[in-house]
């Protein structure tokens, strides 16, 4: 074996710049190339996501319209649009309808239904579980234009399937109970997400905890209350925030009722579409959009807080 070779003449003080000439990340990418990798995505996001959001804030302060003089030279009108919104009963009507829609279909409908299915199916395997879950998921993945029409057909007043099943001639839920209709529809449509989330959460409840509760003689309800809920509390909150956000921004009711009859299902998402794009009052529409953005922001920040505190 060779003895220590005489060391080559190397500079005693090393040149710091030279030592840092190459990058030390796993692939040797370096910041420059990494920047180039990130740039295209950021450019698209900036132009088609961030910029519109900022612009909506600006538009809300103008009297912009699609046609007419205000289209050529929009003027800043300050908070007029917001004042107009706040004093417009149609806006408050839409807000109230949205609250009903979110509370009814997401917070109550999807959560309760999703949890119930997950709970009923928790220890099962085999065809029954697959059939139930498959149908619930099918309702969720089908295109919204298709399911909307399916519900139109189901609830139709001359010869819809529901009417035939119930033998109620003249029964027209979309006309007589439009809000209830879209609430039931959205519960049906979205229960899959809650079902899967709670299914996963229930799978994480240690069986030993449930067993010891059962050994102690706890009833089904007591097991739920004392063992299951404490374990999945975090999941419930996550689920509530996410589906509230999605339902709040959901445009699908439009495809069932187009906001009607008589504005009875004109939730905020549909309201914006009607005033801004049909009524062409872009400035006023943008003001309502700003309100939607702010509500989204509050919910999202709350949700991210929650995610962070979990880590």
């Amino acid at each position, binding site marked *: 074996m060779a003895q220590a070779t005489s060391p080559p003449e190397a500079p005693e003080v090393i040149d710091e710049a030279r030592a840092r000439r190459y990058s030390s*990340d796993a*692939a*040797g*990418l370096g910041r420059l190339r*990494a*920047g180039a*990798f990130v740039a*295209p*995505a950021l450019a*698209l*996001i900036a132009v*088609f*996501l961030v*910029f*519109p*959001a900022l*612009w*909506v804030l600006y*538009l809300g302060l103008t009297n912009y319209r699609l046609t007419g003089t205000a289209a050529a030279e929009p003027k800043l009108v300050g908070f007029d649009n917001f004042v107009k919104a706040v004093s417009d009963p149609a806006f408050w009507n839409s807000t109230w309808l949205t609250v009903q829609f979110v509370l009814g279909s997401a917070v109550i409908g999807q959560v309760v239904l999703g949890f*119930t299915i997950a709970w*009923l199916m928790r220890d099962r395997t085999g065809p029954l579980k697959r059939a*139930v879950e498959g*149908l*619930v998921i*099918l*309702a*969720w*993945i*089908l*295109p*919204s*234009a*298709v399911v909307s*029409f*399916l519900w139109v*057909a*189901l609830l139709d007043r001359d*010869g819809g*399937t529901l009417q*035939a099943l119930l033998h109620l001639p003249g029964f027209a839920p979309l006309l007589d109970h439009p809000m209830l209709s879209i609430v039931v529809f959205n519960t*049906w449509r979205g229960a899959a*997400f809650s079902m899967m989330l709670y299914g996963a959460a229930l799978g994480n409840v240690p069986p030993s905890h449930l067993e010891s509760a059962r050994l102690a003689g706890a009833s089904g309800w007591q097991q739920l209350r004392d063992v299951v809920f404490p374990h999945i509390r975090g999941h419930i909150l*996550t689920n509530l925030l996410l589906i509230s956000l*999605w339902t709040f*921004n*959901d*445009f*699908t009711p439009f*495809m069932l009722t187009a906001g009607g009859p008589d504005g009875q299902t004109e939730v905020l*998402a549909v309201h914006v579409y009607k005033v*801004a*794009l049909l009524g062409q009052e*872009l400035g006023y529409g*943008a003001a309502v*959009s700003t309100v939607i*953005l702010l509500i*989204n*922001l509050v919910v*999202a920040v709350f949700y*991210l807080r929650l995610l962070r505190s979990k880590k």
Partner: protein
Amino acid sequence: MTRFVLGRIGFYTLIAVLLAFFTIPLLWLAAAPFTSDPTYEVRVPDFTLDNFTAILEHPYALPSLLNSLVLAVGTALLVVLFAALAAYALSRVRLPGRDALLYALLLLSSIITGTAAMVPLFQLAVELNLIDSQLGLILILSGGLLPAAIFMLKDFMDSTPKSYEESARVFGASPLQIVRHVVVPLVRPGLATIAVWAVANVWGNFLMPYLLLSDVEKQPAAVIMYTLYTEGGQANLTLLSTFGLLYSVPVVLMYLFVSKKYGFRFHGGIKR
């Protein structure tokens, strides 16, 4: 004992009600396409295939499916490519402001929805001459999907050990060789997931094409479907039933494929 029997009966009654609730609205889609002269009411089909000729005769039905495909594939390619590049760089290189950027992306993707941004997006499309442009729509849809895609892919890449890349690097592979030989094969399941997610999202999206494509020849199936049942007198149920079925089948196949192949179930944030 009686309590047990009652419990069983209760359980199966509940299951039956649930099954009925979820099945009845879907029955029409299964039966009507194969029933002669379908009505709104579900009837036992006589298994005719004649209804499908209605689609061939309709001038916009089949082209709209093609339009949907173009939009979905175009957006998926763009999203996968851009998100993969960005996620890889963000996962492996300590770029200044990286954490803030990721946080902002996550926040943005959840607050700027189609609903909140429809007014300025419409405006932007008018200004940039992107109304009635499929490319424009693809860009807009990609912009909306990218933040979530980057986030999911970065998570995926973070959980892929760096030692593979480092090992290749010690052997002398260049960064691009490393990406081609090592990274892409390793994260392929993640890329496929994002691609499927993007396709599913665009395939079902109604609002954006409804706002931005007024030329009926460019409209995707979602818009044509809506037009078919809202516009003009008596809806053509023969056409609606078969068209709805054809439009739905790819989504179902994709779901089955993905859940078979990756054991993957649509999870949080996967769909709005």
